[in-house]
């Protein structure tokens, strides 16, 4: 009978309600997942090290760690890979709460507010000036944009381990087919727009483009790629002479004329090429020769190298109305206060930033070095000559810039920018209007939510 059946399968609706409520509460119960550090019987110190290096670079990291252990026999590094940046910050938070944090972790600079306010990490300055000190002069060798991002409210909390940047990835074959010089990338904004149009083709005449000239990276502002989208937009903002926030961090600047120009360029190309119907899996599109130009980062070099018959190169970004510029970002090392091995952790960090190790790490992983001294190493300069794509990224470091630091509410402000970019392109709204709207939200946030 139907009635009997129900009594068997009927789950109490209350139970279902309860399960949703767990979502909010369970976070504090998720364990850090990582066991307590164990001291080896041999008296070796074991450092736990969490990171989210791009998976293709993990073998290089293992090599790096092996070399460190050979040179420092008393220290063993136990590296633990956490798949994405977002998962890493969530894991670090719960680990700090449950007192199972790693000794050292690879972090993004935008975690700093949370980590510092939780008093979870050491100030790098204390270690630099500590017993095993680092000469101040050495810091001036680092790319300043990287060090600036490693600070929170003017204090250095972490040390850059590697740098990344953005270049213009081009397909020579498609340039040639369109009658363009394959080795002459677009040099200005106007050329970028023009090339993008000329490289966009509807081969079978069905009204839908089979090949697209340039990919304007529009992703959902609420999705995981919002920061990646904004990060790729920043170089255009810089090229037009703009910045994200004022130095005092009291109000945002991303609705300036420069920002409107940068967003208008994106909007124009987006509309010219009818990108609304194009895939957002730009890597697949580029690999399958449906895309002629796209913005890309050095971590993808191994990927493109693996694809046979793909004739590609990395060009510097085109010059904007005000200047040449690209963006530089770093990934950083922080020492957690829960560690019992501050000395060893600092030994590791000091070792990683040594010029010869930076050169080695860059050659093995494809990441960019964090300091200029690598160029005095003949092995590295020779390597760059034979690896043009990496050289293109490294050369651009001279004009690389980072957005002004956002010590508070950086993530939400980035979301606000992402919303404006998405609305102006996909939503076909006026760039000035949407940037003003977003800027107002950000300013409101800075007025009300910032603790001084």
């Amino acid at each position, binding site marked *: 009978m139907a*009635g009997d059946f129900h009594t068997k399968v009927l789950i109490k609706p209350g139970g279902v309600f309860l399960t949703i409520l767990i979502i*909010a509460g369970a*976070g504090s119960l998720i364990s850090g997942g990582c066991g307590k550090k164990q001291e080896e019987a041999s008296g070796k110190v074991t450092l736990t090290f969490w990171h989210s290096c791009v998976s293709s670079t993990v073998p290089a990291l293992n090599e790096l760690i092996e070399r460190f252990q050979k040179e420092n026999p008393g220290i063993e590094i136990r590296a633990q890979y956490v798949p994405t940046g977002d998962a890493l910050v969530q894991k670090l*938070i719960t680990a700090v709460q449950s007192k199972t944090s790693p000794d050292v972790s690879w972090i993004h600079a935008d975690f700093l507010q949370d980590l510092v306010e939780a008093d979870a990490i050491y100030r790098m300055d204390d270690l630099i000036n500590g017993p095993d000190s680092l000469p101040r002069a050495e810091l001036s060798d680092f790319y300043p944009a990287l060090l600036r991002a490693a600070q929170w409210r003017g204090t250095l909390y972490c040390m850059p381990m590697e740098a990344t940047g953005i270049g213009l990835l081009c397909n020579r074959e498609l340039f040639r087919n369109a009658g363009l010089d394959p080795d002459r990338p677009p040099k200005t904004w106007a050329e970028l727009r023009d090339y993008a149009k000329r490289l966009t083709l509807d081969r079978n005449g069905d009204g839908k483009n089979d090949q697209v000239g340039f990919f304007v990276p529009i992703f959902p502002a609420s999705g995981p790629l919002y920061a990646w989208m904004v990060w790729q937009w920043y170089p255009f903002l810089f090229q037009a002479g703009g910045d994200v926030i004022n130095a005092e961090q009291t109000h945002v600047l991303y609705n300036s004329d420069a920002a409107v120009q940068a967003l208008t360029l994106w909007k124009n190309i987006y509309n010219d090429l009818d990108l*609304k119907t194009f895939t957002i899996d730009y890597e697949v*599109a580029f690999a399958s020769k449906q895309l002629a130009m796209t913005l890309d980062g050095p971590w993808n070099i191994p990927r493109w190298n693996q694809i046979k018959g793909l004739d590609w190169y990395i060009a510097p970004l085109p010059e904007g109305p005000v200047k040449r510029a690209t963006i530089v970002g770093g990934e950083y090392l922080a020492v957690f206060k829960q560690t019992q091995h501050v000395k060893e952790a600092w030994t590791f960090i000091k070792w990683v930033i040594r010029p010869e190790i930076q050169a080695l790490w860059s050659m093995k992983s494809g990441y960019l070095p964090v300091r200029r001294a690598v160029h005095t190493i003949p092995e590295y300069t020779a390597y760059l000559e034979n690896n043009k794509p990496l050289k293109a990224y490294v050369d651009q470091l001279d004009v690389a810039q980072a957005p002004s630091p956002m010590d508070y509410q950086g993530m939400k402000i980035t979301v606000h920018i992402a919303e404006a970019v998405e609305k102006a392109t996909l939503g076909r709204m006026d760039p000035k209007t949407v940037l003003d709207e977003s800027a107002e939200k950000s300013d409101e946030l800075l007025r009300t939510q910032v603790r001084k």
Partner: protein
Amino acid sequence: MSIFHAQQGRKPGQGWSALLFLSPTLLVFSMFVLFPVFFSFYLSFHKWNMFSADTAFVGLENYSRILRNPEFWGVLKNTVVYTLGTIPLNMSLALLVAFFLNKKIAGKKFLRTAFFAPVIMSSVAAAVIWRWVYEPNFGLLNYCLSWFGIPAINWLNDPTAAMFALIVMGVWKTFGVNMVLFSAGLQGIPDHYYEAAEIDGAGRWQKFWSITLPLLSPTTFFILVMSVIGSFQVFDTVYVLTSGGPLGTTKVLVFYLYEHAFKFFEMGYASAVAYVMFVIIFVLTLLQTKYLKGTIHYTA
């Protein structure tokens, strides 16, 4: 009744041993269900970023921020659209399939398994597959549509198409459960009603409207209530397929909650969202019980 009988018949001390046997479950239940329920209620009146040890009491501020936030109302609207989009489609499809599978047809068992398969599939894995089905350039759906000369649609990145795409996947994923429930309901209707109706000269439709539907109403009611709850809680497919985009058109309540809890680390605000959601679902369920109870016909 049976519970009371058991209690009356128990020997002294039996309660404690029962508790002992229940304790593992009770422990897990209190840790992972009961505690979070109360803790998130507590949190909904506080400000907490998960990092810091201290929480600041803010009274009803989280709740008033939710109600004043236009984004919340947009998200609620999206959730309602999703619910209204999935439920009628889901229930009519489930009933239709159950109705035909209830007849003697070849391959009945295979078909039932096939229709039920999406239910037991991991929803994230299924959503990843659907992402490729919906892919504008390389996807199966646009490829099939192109046979009929229909131009490519960017299903997941077009603000007008994305919610529709989610609804279709949602129906595909969940209608199997309802199909099984309807099947059970159909089998529970005694044959003699139909025989009597046939003797009286009732046609196929008449039998369906006057016997099948009314006698199926307890099942239908149960499915409706559960579907409303389920649709309001949709999250994993949204997370994988659209992450709330494009332009926030598929941002639903649980996704909004997730965003505040695990992206912005506003645990207090997120907990308050959970409780607002609880109240909404609770009220909806009460309303359904109140107004639909009268239309339910139970078999004797």
